């Protein structure tokens, strides 16, 4: 229990750091980027929006940093993330539309990639020294290919050339979004290639990690004992795998951060209407409120995923569970 509380503490602290960094960055950066931007949008939007913008970033108002900070937090508690200049809509409502796409895409591909990679890694570790080792150089190479580049190649080959998959977007433009079968089917069809990209790009990490851990674990006495007990081979492998998977799970937070970053760029390649696509819009238009909102949403999503991984770890490793 204590372990979990400690982790929770770390995540809360991380969230606080992320929020505070978000608050401080525009105020401390040299060159007053926000002021420049306000100059640009003046006259193009309503004065209320300009004013809200000034309050959000503490420009032109002679308030102490502390009272700005308090204001910032109270806005956050009301889920008011500001107004997106480029999309002329509140940031929170823009995010509300994009986040489900990203969470769906990344969630599904992470789970598939982890499970598949762990299974393959288990087998490779068990059959080390056989022809199956030939998978390793391939995995090493795949691991080194940037997600978005890989997505681009897949898009070119399988969508543009072979036409096995639809090219861009998340669903057929001829359909009305809603909970009806033809739309869901279209979402599934359009999601395949982006998901495959993320799975293949991220799977090598799980494979290699699991494989190396399997090799190490198979060298332990308790695995030899499982053989000496005359247990079926399946059971022996399970003995080893059950132990070998633990580091993969405890390394989840590192992998998760990288995977999310990679997947966001994959969205760009496929024009997938998720947070990644939004990120591009925000960057291109220097839409700071949108950018900050995206950063917070991503951070919170990653932290929640980490918490889930910690729970899984706790359930799987009795040593941590009881000692805590």
């Amino acid at each position, binding site marked *: 229990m204590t372990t979990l509380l400690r982790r929770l503490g770390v995540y809360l602290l991380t969230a606080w750091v992320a929020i505070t960094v978000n608050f401080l960055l525009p105020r401390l950066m040299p060159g007053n980027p926000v002021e420049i931007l306000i100059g640009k949008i003046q006259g193009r939007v309503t004065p209320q929006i300009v004013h809200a913008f000034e309050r959000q970033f503490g420009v032109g108002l002679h308030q102490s940093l502390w009272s700005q900070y308090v204001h910032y937090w109270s806005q956050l508690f009301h889920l008011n993330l500001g107004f997106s200049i480029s999309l002329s809509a509140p940031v929170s409502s823009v995010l509300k539309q994009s986040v489900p796409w990203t969470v769906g895409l990344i969630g599904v591909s992470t789970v598939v990639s982890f499970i598949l990679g762990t299974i393959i890694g288990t087998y490779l570790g068990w059959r080390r020294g056989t022809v199956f080792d030939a998978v390793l150089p391939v995995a090493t190479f795949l691991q080194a290919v940037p997600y978005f580049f890989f997505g681009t190649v897949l898009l070119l080959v399988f969508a543009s050339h072979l036409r096995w998959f639809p090219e861009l977007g998340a669903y057929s433009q001829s359909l009305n979004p809603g909970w009806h079968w033809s739309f869901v089917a279209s979402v599934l069809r359009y999601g395949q290639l982006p998901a495959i990209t993320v799975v293949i790009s991220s799977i090598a990490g799980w494979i290699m990690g699991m494989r190396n851990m399997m090799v190490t674990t198979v060298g332990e006495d308790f695995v030899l004992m499982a*053989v*000496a007990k*005359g247990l079926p081979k399946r059971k022996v492998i399970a*003995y080893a795998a*059950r132990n070998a998977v633990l580091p993969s799970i405890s390394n989840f937070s590192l992998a998760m951060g990288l995977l999310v970053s990679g997947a966001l760029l994959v969205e760009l390649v496929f024009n997938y209407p998720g947070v990644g696509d939004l990120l591009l819009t925000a960057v291109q238009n220097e839409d700071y409120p949108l950018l900050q909102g995206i950063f917070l949403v991503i951070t919170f999503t990653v932290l929640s995923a980490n918490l889930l991984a910690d729970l899984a770890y706790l359930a799987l490793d009795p*040593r941590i569970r009881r000692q805590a």
Partner: protein
Amino acid sequence: MSGLEQVAAAPSANGTGPPARPADREVVLEMSHLSVDYGLGPTALHAVVDANLTLHKGEVLGLAGESGSGKSTLVYGATRLLREPGVVAGGEVLLASRSGAAGARMDLLKASERQLRAIRWSDISIVLQSALNALNPVVPIGKEFDDILRAHSRLSRKERRAKAEKLLSMVGIPPARLGDHPHELSGGQRQRVMIALALALEPQVVIMDEPTTALDVVTQREILEELVGLRDELGFALLFITHDLSLLIELADEIAVMYAGRIVERAPAAALYRAPRHPYTLGLLHSFPPLHGEVGPMTGIPGSPPDLAAVPSGCAFHPRCPYALERCARQVPLLGELEGSGREVACFLHGGELSVPVELAVS
């Protein structure tokens, strides 16, 4: 070939049985001419050379020798559990299997993976030196019992549970602790759990590789006494490995002594203690204080055990042997029966041509 070598070539189990070991006692495990190497080809290390061992029903056979003499290699090789780069370079390991036809014996070195799986644990079980490493750290110990019983019997879940509880209480641990994980048990408790696991299927042969070395003397004593009690109750044969000869003398019926991969002496425990015949055994006996009784002078053996990559020629012990003959450096003495005594020794001093030094001639 000398007469000594010819004697060694005959399997030790049959032939003229000594009075202490009636020939009609059932043999449960017999290794003959077992050789085990690490690696292959010209650079291979010969860790066990031409070892013969016979284990009878209900008997405790002790295997002693300094660290690195090849005791573990011998038993892991014989049970085909040795890891890479270990290979069995020849011999025969016959196990009286209960699953096969009556009296039929199975050669573990010729068995298939499937055959091995069937006899493992049900006919022959093994306890490792470090119980902490031998128990799966992430499952409760009850699961270990359950896995064994599930793989080898058709008991229902309830029956398996009951059996596991019975086994655990047999070694003096409350059955409630079946839900505990290895790290929640003390070193002694873990080793007891290992022993209970080893006995779960009532095998005929139990091998223990230094099961108590990591424990303190009191716990060690308790566990050994328990073990003797269990042996009397269940009647399994025990192959017990240790480098502590004095411990074996109390526990074992028979003792075999290993040096640099070869068995150099084999004798009934009492006889070996009273009258060692090999200079190495004599040295070993003086290296440990006995568990009971007066403490004799602990002289030990000068020098250190040889490196397997550079075993001395002839008798590997000759550089450290106070009685070494000129011949010992040239020729390997083979294990041969000492006239009518029911014991074997591999030493030229007992070849009959020379007078035996007085320390090795006590009767």
